[in-house]
């Protein structure tokens, strides 16, 4: 499984410009996110093993205004609404874009420039993605030109 904080309480709070505050609590295989952790804990402790479930409540909205973000047993993200949820697409988009993004990226497999960096910390991941592969050599450079580049890299600095 991708999440490693199983069997201990793990809290995370994030406040964003959209004024959504989330608290994550790990309960076995279940992570519940909500303004009311106690309610969420009771409600979602029956989640299926191997499934990461997140419930998000938006400030000022009723309990029914929820949706789930989940991961199946292979770690593939699933994103679905419950039947009894009345969410507008704009809210889903908002939370997808603004709130869950960092969390999802931290837990999903992240591959950058052919390297799996999922196990890096958030800060390391950010640094890696900013620094590695930042030099775009454009269309003129193809793998057939590697030997030319190597020649330069080996110290052929004449000009």
């Amino acid at each position, binding site marked *: 499984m991708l999440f490693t904080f199983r069997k201990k309480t793990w809290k995370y709070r994030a406040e964003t410009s959209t004024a959504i505050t989330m608290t994550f609590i790990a309960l076995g295989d279940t992570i519940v996110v909500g303004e009311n952790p106690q309610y969420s804990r009771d409600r979602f402790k029956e989640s299926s093993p191997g499934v990461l479930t997140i419930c998000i409540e938006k400030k000022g909205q009723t309990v029914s205004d929820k949706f789930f973000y989940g991961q199946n047993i292979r770690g593939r993200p699933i994103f679905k609404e419950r039947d009894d949820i009345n969410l507008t697409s704009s809210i889903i988009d908002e939370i997808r874009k603004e709130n869950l993004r960092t969390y999802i990226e931290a837990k999903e497999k992240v591959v950058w420039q052919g390297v799996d960096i999922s*196990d890096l910390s958030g800060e390391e991941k950010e640094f890696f993605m900013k620094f590695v*592969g930042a030099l*775009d050599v454009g269309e003129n450079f193809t793998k057939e030109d*590697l030997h030319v580049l190597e020649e330069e890299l080996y*110290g052929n600095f004449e000009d």
Partner: protein
Amino acid sequence: MGISRIRYNDTLRFTKGTRVYLDTNFLLAIRIDDDKLMSSEKLTNAKKLFKKLLVSKAELVLSPLVLDESWYIHLKLLYEKDNGRGSWRRDRPLKNKPCFISAYRKELKEFTESLFSDPRFEFVNVTQEVAEKAFLYMVENCFGPRDSFHLAMAIQSGINKFVTIDRDFKTGEEEDIDLTVIKYSS
């Protein structure tokens, strides 16, 4: 004592705080966007090795020489990207229109500041002692002038890990050198 060589492999591990001198070619191999070069095992291995260094909290050591060489290659690649293959040699912009560099200020600044501002990177200085050591490596151990300087800066700074893709980088039983060269070329 001497210079030993190990090749990159996925099981390679570093202890926390290991100080590793990064050769210019390594620094550039991780900087190059190899989106079109995904089949390049060498470039990908360089990036994997860089990740290992990050994970192990290694101290990444650079020198003014590495910075100088990196700027040069950045300029060459960026110039050829904009002006076509072979334009660097044809136009000789450093001699004929040196102010072309200002067109790449943004890219160079971003690269340089990322090295200066990040605590993972450490710069070592060239001192007279380093130069004297480099001279000895050059005349007594048959290293080229540049390699002598890289080596001297690393050794003088107490570093015993040196990352390079330079397949010509010499190894041997030098008495006063204790260095492991990590190569990630095949």
